[in-house]
């Protein structure tokens, strides 16, 4: 009854369903420019670009995330929209995006004015981050500052950054607790609600979870450093743990395998789609075969039967 349905390629739409903070559309009096979507270097992945939104006058930075699950579409007014995504535009601390540039410049060890640091051939729009209200004022969280005349100079500071990130983690923990988010390893469902709150034992779980969340916004190196700074031991995921070798090494000489099994590991041995069975074949396959002889049994040599 079910026929194969072909997936037509996604065509670009010119409409999106967006949930945004009120502040995105509240236009400040003074201003000039409309809120704009811009692509900027993602601080955690480094090279990849992600989508952000700058509020009008570039005053506030927002990140854009999409709720995206298979088999969803929208009915909007009298139309259907194939793209079933729900975009969230949420406020973001611009310092996270400035940080990679400061770190890069910090390697030279010099104090530099921040507008010299914020240069990026690939993403020239990154200079606009500097006009966000929180940018200039919060640079001292991650950098040492010097003022010569009216010009400010900055130099990246790892210690300050760690303290700043630690605060972020602790704030996140507070929010996680308040929003009743299950952080334990055993819990996989977001809808699972804990009846009892085991506060003390969960402290580390919360810290780790919050650290993971913050790590979405910083580079991997920083994430590792932060883990140390929080005095959390690094977890090795169970996947990486190799099972203990069953063969004992008898000599120091490199062992050579007696048989080469790797040839079975080639592509033709990989998962093949199961063959389609007709309805009749399916019902046949379900038949209880206990006590039935296989067809080939009738063709085996008679020797055994005669011996009896």
């Amino acid at each position: 009854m079910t026929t194969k349905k072909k997936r037509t390629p996604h065509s670009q739409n010119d409409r999106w369903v967006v949930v945004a903070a009120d502040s995105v559309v509240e236009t400040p009096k003074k201003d000039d420019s409309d809120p704009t979507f811009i692509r900027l270097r993602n601080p955690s992945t480094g090279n990849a670009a992600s989508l952000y939104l700058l509020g009008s006058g570039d005053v506030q930075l927002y990140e854009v995330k999409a709720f995206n699950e298979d088999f969803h579409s929208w009915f909007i007014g009298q139309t259907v929209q194939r793209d079933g995504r729900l975009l969230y535009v949420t406020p973001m601390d611009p310092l996270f995006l400035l940080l990679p540039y400061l770190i890069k410049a910090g390697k030279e060890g010099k104090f530099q004015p921040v507008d010299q640091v914020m240069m990026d051939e690939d993403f020239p729009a990154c200079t606009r981050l500097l006009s966000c209200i929180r940018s200039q004022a919060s640079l001292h969280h991650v950098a040492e500052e010097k003022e010569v005349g009216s010009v400010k100079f900055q130099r990246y500071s790892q210690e300050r950054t760690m303290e700043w990130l630690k605060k972020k983690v602790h704030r996140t923990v507070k929010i996680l607790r308040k929003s009743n988010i299950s952080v334990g390893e055993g819990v996989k469902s977001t809808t699972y609600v804990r009846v009892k709150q085991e506060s003390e034992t969960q402290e580390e779980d919360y810290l780790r979870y919050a650290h993971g969340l913050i790590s979405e916004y910083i580079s991997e190196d920083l994430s590792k450093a932060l883990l140390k700074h929080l005095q959390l031991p690094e977890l090795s995921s169970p996947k990486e743990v190799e099972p203990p070798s069953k063969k004992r090494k008898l000599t120091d000489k490199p062992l050579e395998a007696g048989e080469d099994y790797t040839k079975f590991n080639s592509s033709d041995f990989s998962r093949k789609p199961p063959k389609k069975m007709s309805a009749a074949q399916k019902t046949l396959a379900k038949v209880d075969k206990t006590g039935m002889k296989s067809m080939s049994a009738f063709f085996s040599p008679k020797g055994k039967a005669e011996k009896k």
Partner: protein
Amino acid sequence: MDLSEFEADNSVSCRLASAIPDVCKTEDCCLGIDEAGRGPVLGPMVYGICFCPVAKKEDLKDLKVADSKTLTEAQREDLFRKLDEAKSFVGWALQVLSPNTISTSMLQRSKYNLNALSHDAAIGLVQFALDSGVQLKEVFVDTVGPAEKYQEKLSQRFPGVEVTVRPKADSLFPIVSAASICAKVARDHSVKDWNFPEDLGEVDADYGSGYPNDPKTKAWLLKELDPVFGYPQFVRFSWSTTQTLLDSKAVTVHWDDDEEDGEKAAARQNNTSMLSYFKAGSKTSAQQSNTHQTHRFFTERRLQSLATL
């Protein structure tokens, strides 16, 4: 026949019944079951029961009820009127299964097929008669599917009632013929002036018999197809006639329980091939460190960063 109760909301199943004759509550009764509108792609399927005291079986014959298929529409109307007039000893009840009920039952996640639907409608009606105080002793049914299995199912469900399931029962037993007339008349009425709950403007009412091989029905189905919604609730979506038309003419819709086979489906379900566990360890760990793993806060909530709009 008063179908207003069904017409008030023709998206759901509805039960219509005559008053229960007093003799049926005191004397041993026989009951016939038959259905109308099993095959058509349009309109409801109607299940009907008719019952009367066993002693009055002969009176039914005098009414000259016969298999509804051998009668013209006018004759059926006439006979139904006579049956309704014989309310001193004949009672009837109908279960109108709307096309929407049929579609949603057959196409839901755990499939509920037409035979099961039919059987349950029949059982429901017999139970209704019992609950109304009818002294049932004999039940005659035209078969749906294998007669023996069906008979066994009904006998088990109603111990103490003698159940006879027979193909062509509608021409063998007058009480089944009577039930078939009730069912057929109800179906004809409901299809004739189908009340489209959808806001469709002027709908062409010339849809013929509703059977898939009727050229008028075919032409109507081709004309009324909406690329997004398909059809009004009048059409049984679970019929292959409908599905073929939808597949070829309407926009493709994907559901998460669509059957998909093989590697692609496995990937969709996030299954890992058994073989991947035997691959050299270095490869998988290298892959892991290359690809940035999004934190589970986001993956659990199906949230992802965007590169472009």
